[in-house]
């Protein structure tokens, strides 16, 4: 099970808390999936009373506030400070958006913000790409976990670049890695975990499913299955058939 900044988390599933039909269904989805971490957006939900944050605190998962919707270092740092004050956690999922159509990370601003926040004592979970040099710079900036995208946020496209994700895993075997964004189906979650990732983080695929509670449960099962499969050392794929029962030497051949 994943360990982030020394904290053990009981599930490889991390769930976002936006876009559910109601807070009651959100709570049921967390109960059904036993998701270990709940991410919450501070940017738009803040400002008034904190009713929704209190609901999130009641979910029984560790809270990971995010800087969703931030487009600059300054915005992201301010949002992180606000999150620390409101939620009393130094964890922050750092999101600095570079392109509004793809909601892709601005990796330059991301590295800068990560260094600044680490210096201020934050434990940063950066939403990044699978680029190895970006990963290196984020680690140098003080991040102890990396969260590359599978595909653009909310797209449900799955793992667009499995080769890149595998390379990242191989390059940083000791760093906790999370596939964040793009997961649309349980098979995507299982694939990410089979690559040896420590966790998957998703939101839209559950919140906007016809039955969010059932989908949350399915995602948790898939993440668990993928993790178990990775630990069980899967066979290598091969071109030729390899019969599971030997044919040579059998007493009777048809």
């Amino acid at each position: 099970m994943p360990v982030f900044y020394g904290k053990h988390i009981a599930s490889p599933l991390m769930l976002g808390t936006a876009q559910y039909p109601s807070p009651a269904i959100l709570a049921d989805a967390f109960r059904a999936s036993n998701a270990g971490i709940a991410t919450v957006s501070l940017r738009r939900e803040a400002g008034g009373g904190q009713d929704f944050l209190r609901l999130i605190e009641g979910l029984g998962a560790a809270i990971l506030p995010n800087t969703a919707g931030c487009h600059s270092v300054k915005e992201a740092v301010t949002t992180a400070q606000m999150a620390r004050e409101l939620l009393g956690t130094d964890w922050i999922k750092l999101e600095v958006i570079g392109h509004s159509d793809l909601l892709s990370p601005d990796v330059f601003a991301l590295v800068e913000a990560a260094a600044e926040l680490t210096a201020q004592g934050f434990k940063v979970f950066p939403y990044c790409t699978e680029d190895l040099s970006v990963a290196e710079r984020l680690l140098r900036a003080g991040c102890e976990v990396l969260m590359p995208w599978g595909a653009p946020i909310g797209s449900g496209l799955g793992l667009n670049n499995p080769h890149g994700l595998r390379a990242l895993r191989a390059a940083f075997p000791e760093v906790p890695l999370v596939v964040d964004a793009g997961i649309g189906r349980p098979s995507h979650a299982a694939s990410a975990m089979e690559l040896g990732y420590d966790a998957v983080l998703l939101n839209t695929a559950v919140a906007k499913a016809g039955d969010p509670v059932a989908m949350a449960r399915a995602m948790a099962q898939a993440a668990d299955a993928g993790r178990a499969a990775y630990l069980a050392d899967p066979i290598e794929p091969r071109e030729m058939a390899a019969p599971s029962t030997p044919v040579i030497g059998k007493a009777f051949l048809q």
Partner: protein
Amino acid sequence: MSGFTILGAGVLGLCVATELAGRGHAVTLVDPALGPGTQGCSWWAGGMLAPWCEFENAEEPVLRHGQPAIDWWDRNAGGVTRKGTLVLALGRDRAELDRFARRTHGFDEIGGNRLAELEPDLAGRFDRGLFFAAEAHLDPRTAMAGLQSRLSERGIAIAAEPPETPGQIVDCRGLAARDILPELRGVRGEMLVLRCPDVALTRTVRLLHPRVPIYLVPRGDGIFMLGATMIESDRRGVVTARSVLELLSAAYALHPGFGEAEIIELGADARPAFPDNLPRIGRAADGRLYANGLYRHGYLLAPAVAMQLADHIATGNKPEFWHETDDQR
């Protein structure tokens, strides 16, 4: 005949007063603002009577209890426009339309020709849509004024303070009732009112979008209500630039004529909601009855909630939206 004092003259307070007065009860309606106005979220509502569309993201009771609302409003306030709802999506969001169709019923799938018959100004702009013919809309402010004037014909005025002997109190204060209903939360919504004589639409149009779904409700005379954001916050008052940008961009994408619209109002308020986003009727610790939590379904569900409350008063039975705390069970 027993007396009732209803706290709050928003859409729910007015509907409850109408139901109780209609059943022969003596009713006093109390609101510090002396009537509907900008202080309540009912003022800023869209006024869609669209239970089939709402079912896309709402639970089944909204679909079932929303349908009788159309006739209820026609009977008790008038001013209901029964022209259905059009649901559309821009080219690259066609999958949203498929999904909406999967999650709802009660519509016809229409092509460009039928769309051009229904709303000529949208001809050629969309080649596909969903038409929910049985849906309707109203102008919330006219509807509340209609209820208020019929109540006043029965001799029921709105007082600023409760009478000395209030009888049974019925609390319909919306978000202000958080003092007795700690589970109530605010869900912020922002809206604009546009004057745009260049675009003629006769029915509610919803434009689906993965990030910014909008609806436009025609108010007649070239006036449109454009809504609405859904933000988990109880902040009221001013509208943010981002929300205005998003709402107007989507309206402009629906029809470029909205680029020339005059913005005559910007509004924001917080909808009262319980954790399941469904209404509750119940009895508070001090003995008052309450009804609350209509969320984004004020005009759609207020009639059903008012009728259930009146039935409870008549029979003592616990209606569908009845809620009990653990202590009361």
